[in-house]
């Protein structure tokens, strides 16, 4: 609320944001990471399309199980 203010961005811009841009849809009644699909009784429920917090359970480190890319678990939301 002062006309002298300056709003400066140092990192954002086409390149930075485009790198994580994968197509946008605002029609997402469940919120990001979930999609609404009809259930058996025709009511909507949310189905995970994203693993969520801890969704990539292979990323548990220590005791010789460290490292990335050992898939096979998770994505069950």
């Amino acid at each position, binding site marked *: *609320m*002062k*006309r002298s*203010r300056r*709003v*400066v*961005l*140092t*990192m*954002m*811009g*086409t390149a*930075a*944001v*485009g790198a*994580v*841009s*994968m*197509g*946008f*849809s*605002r*029609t*997402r*009644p*469940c*919120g*990001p*990471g979930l999609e*609404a699909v009809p259930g058996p009784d025709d*009511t*909507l*429920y*949310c189905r995970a399309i*994203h*693993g*969520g*917090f*801890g*969704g*990539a*359970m292979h*990323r*548990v*480190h*220590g*005791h010789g*199980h*460290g490292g*990335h890319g050992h898939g096979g678990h*998770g994505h*069950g*939301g």
Partner: protein
Amino acid sequence: MQRIACPERDDWQATAEQCGFDFHTVDGERYWDERAYYAFTLQEIEVDIEDATAEIEAMCLDLVECALDDEAMLRRLKIPEPFWPLLGESWERDDRSLYGRLDLSFGGQGPAKLLEYNADTPTSIFEAAVFQWTWLEQAIERGILPPRADQYNSIHERLIERWTEIGCGRQLHLAGITGDDEDAVTLAYLADTAAQAGLATTVIDIEDIGWREDGGGFVDLDDQDMALVFKLYPWEWMFHDVFGARLAEARTRWIEPPWKAILSNKGILPLLWEMFEGHPNLLPAFFEDDPKAATLGPSFVRKPLFSREGANVSLVSGGIAVAAEGGPYGVEGFIRQALASLPDFGGVYPVIGSWLVAHQPCGLSIREDATPITGNTSRFLPHAIL
């Protein structure tokens, strides 16, 4: 408060895309819409919106204090009992909040009324803080607005100040669903403001967070400890997701902090009414199973405790549902809130988003819809103080 039609800048799409705002148009429909703006007087901004926002925030913080000492309240909010200590400890430590947005009904007459509080994962902050300001500056330069025009907006500098208080020099991880454009822009923008405050930033998908088995703790893709994390991911989801069970044993400090799980719940609306009945900025509200809900009569708004983008909200007038949004929410229960008719500006209904950073009111955004329920197809219009 007026809605004033105006010419749009002929290069606004290119300007938006240059600064990373690439979801200005969605499925061919405008999300950012500058063919009109809302004009306010300084009195409306400072008294009706800014003061009211500060007062509502103070009531909300009182409510958190009470709820953490009252198991019955936490049960009413359907917050899972195993997480109560996490909430309480974060409150006792005074874990800091970054931001939030109150949605208010206000049309220029009478007090602003709280519709709900987006306390945990508010989005649209980039449009509010940056692109709306760019519009103001260019609209003045191009004669669309008079030279004296101003805007209620210090969101950007307040964010930088708050990040400085939270952790200048520290490593900050920003986690969310990076494949979603709106969330990605929010994360990128907040990372930018944090970097300007002197924090080292890393953006990570919430799914890519790992756990260090020996010694415990959350780690990033480089196995670095995640000591300070901004998460654009609702607490109620974190509680139920796989790593929810690890939250208590991790030393991570979260932004927003766990105690914000209370304020992001629509159950605060009846609880606020119970504590501050008759306050001019509140609407009567009750849990649906409370016999007092009948006192609202046949006209009310029905909202699930947890809901986003207007999903499963229905507007009942004279016993008849006049507008309803479908969706998957409602399992945890509903609240009923007195009907506050949104101001009608010629067939469009604006909702005021009143922004807080570090609990201080600091800016405004407006979403406008052709129905009285603001959902995920509503448009963002800029505002000016004239």
